[in-house]
């Protein structure tokens, strides 16, 4: 049981660290703001989630004092707020540089089929 818990903890910490590192590397390396936004908003959030779940398992099973649910609060908060902040960041970037806004989608002309 202890070995299984250890393996799960190791896997969660490793996956979380690798995801956060890849997200930060993408933030530093990519060339455009709208490309850079992909790294932190997806990878880093997943990395933080994995680390928080690892911490929850560790403090629940390795120390006395019952279940540890603080991390669930933090995980919920981070997962709830990350899309909102990303959305606001994109809106701010588009207002700073309106030329980056993509053209509106072309509506296909369906009136010719309906109207005789």
């Amino acid at each position: 049981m202890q070995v299984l818990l250890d393996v799960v903890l190791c896997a969660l910490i490793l996956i979380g660290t690798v995801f956060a590192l890849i997200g930060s590397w993408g933030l530093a390396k990519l060339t455009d703001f709208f490309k850079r936004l992909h790294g932190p908003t997806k990878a880093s959030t997943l990395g933080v989630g994995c680390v928080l779940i690892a911490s929850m398992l560790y403090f629940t099973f390795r120390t006395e004092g019952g279940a540890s649910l603080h991390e669930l609060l933090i995980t919920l908060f981070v997962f709830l707020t990350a899309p909102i902040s990303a959305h606001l960041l994109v809106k701010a970037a588009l207002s700073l540089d309106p030329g980056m806004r993509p053209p509106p989608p072309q509506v296909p002309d369906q009136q010719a089929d309906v109207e005789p």
Partner: protein
Amino acid sequence: MIATTLLPYAIGAFTLALLLNLYRLLRGPGLADRILALDTLYINSLALLILVGIHFGTPVFFEAALVIAMMGFVGTVALSKFVLRGDIVE
């Protein structure tokens, strides 16, 4: 206890991630890049605090991580609103 031997390396990797974010924060050509770098910086420092808490075996870092999460979100929203509208409280 493989996890305890893995932890210093994970803390080092998160420190490297923080350094990459700091590079983007100082270098970033636009205002939005710097706000994004700050956003990533607080999320990564939150995870680093949690890992340090596991490493020392104390649950005292949870409150700090929770406060960082809330204040970081408020800071990101305030900065984005300031860029969008030119004012925070309308």
